[in-house]
């Protein structure tokens, strides 16, 4: 029993910390709310330590509900780091926008505990509960700018479509349960192998789960909410949800599909193939037409979901599946660093009332703020996938896994759409360096530190990527007995 608690320790610490923080915050005077932000960062660090020194041997807990394995521990690191970056970019930004209310940090911790549970879920019930635990705080955070109509609209759209997606996931789980008699991933697999499961029902269930999770990771054609929500939500929230919610969605997608439905590969692979290809093409092509930087990054985030989705087509090929899952993890790590860096720059240039978000507001940044412009260039190159950046290595490993699986067409689409993406990413660089202008830049110390740190990490980690990649390749999915 105690071993079970130990396995869930990082999540427990974070959830308990979030509850305590909502209470403690009431006793912190209004002018010293920095304490709340620091305390929540401390909670994240504690959870990070618990995760780091935690369980080494893959094992399940609570009657096979949760599982602690390398996959979950790698993802936990991503979620907790995104929380730390999320606090760093939020603190000054929220105060500048006059929406500094400290429940922001508690909501963020709740959401992260949901994401961590999602990575550790070994039972479809857990997948559903974790999905809602991570989403419900995000709905509130998206509407955090409650005096502004665009933030309210973003929250409502995110909420309605998120709930809609949740409905698909639940119904899919119900059908998978009906087909196999179990909601446990291992139970579904063994029912399929023994032939007692109904394949038709299971396929319909798997497709419905795919639709629901497709909404969460913003895959085309389930992406309609993404640009509006990313644009309307406060930028610090968007930065956080672009990484965290997407990584959590992929955590569930990879674990459930690779482990529970390998026998459905004939039916599912064409679907996943089309979904990945469509997402890459549509995301990258529509991004070209964007002039608002938040919308541009929203479509870029859709496109990146497409790249990561490529990892799922290795469904059913045992050895390759592991490689592809590791490549997806590595890609998510690269995306974490690059994305937070790019959003940090966006936050630095954003002014009151949603000004400073146009591409033209970046004109002249290369002359006035050379360091910031250089950092932004690094992020844009990394998002395109140009060496020497983490984005390049992430794409390299992913394409390699896909090619080894024999999906040459998909890899070609991936490379071609990356070329297309160079057009709009490099346009940001050109505007910064080639056009004259007087960009307004905020002081926000923590945000600047985030930008600097992630820019350095994106380049340096790509030069010494071996340990990180080894860690990702050991982060395999554990099949519970």
């Amino acid at each position, binding site marked *: 029993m105690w071993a079970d608690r130990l396995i869930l320790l990082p999540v427990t610490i974070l959830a308990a910390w979030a509850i305590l923080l909502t209470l403690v915050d009431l006793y912190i005077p209004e002018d010293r709310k920095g304490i709340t932000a620091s305390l929540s960062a401390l909670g994240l660090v504690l959870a990070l330590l618990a995760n780091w020194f935690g369980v080494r041997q893959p094992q399940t807990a609570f009657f096979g509900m949760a599982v602690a394995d390398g996959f979950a521990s790698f993802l936990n690191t991503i979620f907790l780091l995104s929380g730390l970056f999320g606090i760093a970019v939020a603190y000054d930004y929220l105060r500048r926008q006059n929406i500094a209310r400290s429940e922001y940090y508690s909501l963020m911790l709740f959401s992260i505990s949901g994401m961590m549970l999602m990575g550790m879920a070994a039972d479809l019930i857990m997948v559903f509960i974790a999905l*809602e635990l991570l989403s419900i705080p995000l*709905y509130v955070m998206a509407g955090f700018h409650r005096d502004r109509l665009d933030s*309210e609209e973003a929250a409502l759209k995110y909420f309605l479509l998120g709930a809609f997606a*949740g*409905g698909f996931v639940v119904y899919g789980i119900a059908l998978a349960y*009906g087909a196999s008699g179990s909601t446990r991933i291992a139970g579904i697999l063994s029912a399929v192998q023994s032939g007692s499961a109904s394949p038709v029902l299971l396929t319909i269930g798997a497709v419905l789960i795919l639709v629901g999770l497709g909404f969460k990771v913003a895959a085309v054609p389930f992406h309609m909410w993404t640009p*509006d929500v990313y*644009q309307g939500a406060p930028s610090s929230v968007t930065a956080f949800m672009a990484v965290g919610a997407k990584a959590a969605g992929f955590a569930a997608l990879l674990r459930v599909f690779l482990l529970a439905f390998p026998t459905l590969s004939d039916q599912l692979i064409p679907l996943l193939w089309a979904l990945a290809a469509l997402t890459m093409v549509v995301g990258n092509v529509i991004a070209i037409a964007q002039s608002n930087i938040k*919308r541009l990054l929203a479509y870029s985030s859709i496109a990146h979901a497409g790249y990561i989705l490529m990892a799922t087509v290795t469904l059913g090929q045992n050895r390759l599946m592991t490689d592809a899952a590791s490549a997806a993890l590595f890609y998510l790590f690269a995306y974490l660093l690059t994305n937070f860096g790019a959003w940090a720059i966006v936050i630095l240039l954003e002014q009151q009332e949603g000004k400073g978000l146009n591409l033209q507001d970046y004109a002249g940044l290369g002359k006035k703020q050379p360091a910031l412009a250089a950092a932004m260039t690094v992020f844009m190159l990394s998002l395109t996938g140009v060496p020497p950046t983490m984005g390049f290595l992430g794409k390299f490993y992913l394409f390699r896994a896909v090619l080894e699986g024999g999906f040459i067409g998909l890899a070609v689409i991936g490379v071609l759409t990356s070329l297309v993406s160079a057009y709009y990413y490099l346009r940001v660089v050109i505007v910064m360096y080639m056009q004259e202008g007087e960009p307004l830049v905020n002081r926000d110390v923590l945000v600047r530190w985030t930008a600097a740190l992630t820019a350095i990490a994106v380049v340096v980690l790509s030069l010494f990527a071996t340990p990180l990649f080894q860690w990702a390749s050991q982060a395999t999915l554990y099949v519970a007995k």
Partner: protein
Amino acid sequence: MVPIYYYIALSAILFTLGSLGVLIRRNAIIIFMSVELMLNAANLAFVAFARMHGGLSGQIFVFFVMAVAAAEVAVGLALIVKIFETKHSIDIDQMNMMKG
């Protein structure tokens, strides 16, 4: 005894009605009600399948779904009320601040 197929057919109909409601209706509250209909269709399927398999886990899942739906209602209605205060409308066709 009523055969299991009847229950599954009913839940499939409810689920389809719910998802069509989300796609067709324009009022935020009605859309939200349709989402609840989808969740309840899943609940019906869970209970029916639990009976078929003779297990309890499906029935327990229903409790989780209900609890989560209640939490969702709390947040969702608050958001809808807030947007009604600002806009005096909850017609989602009028929520077009952002374009591109």
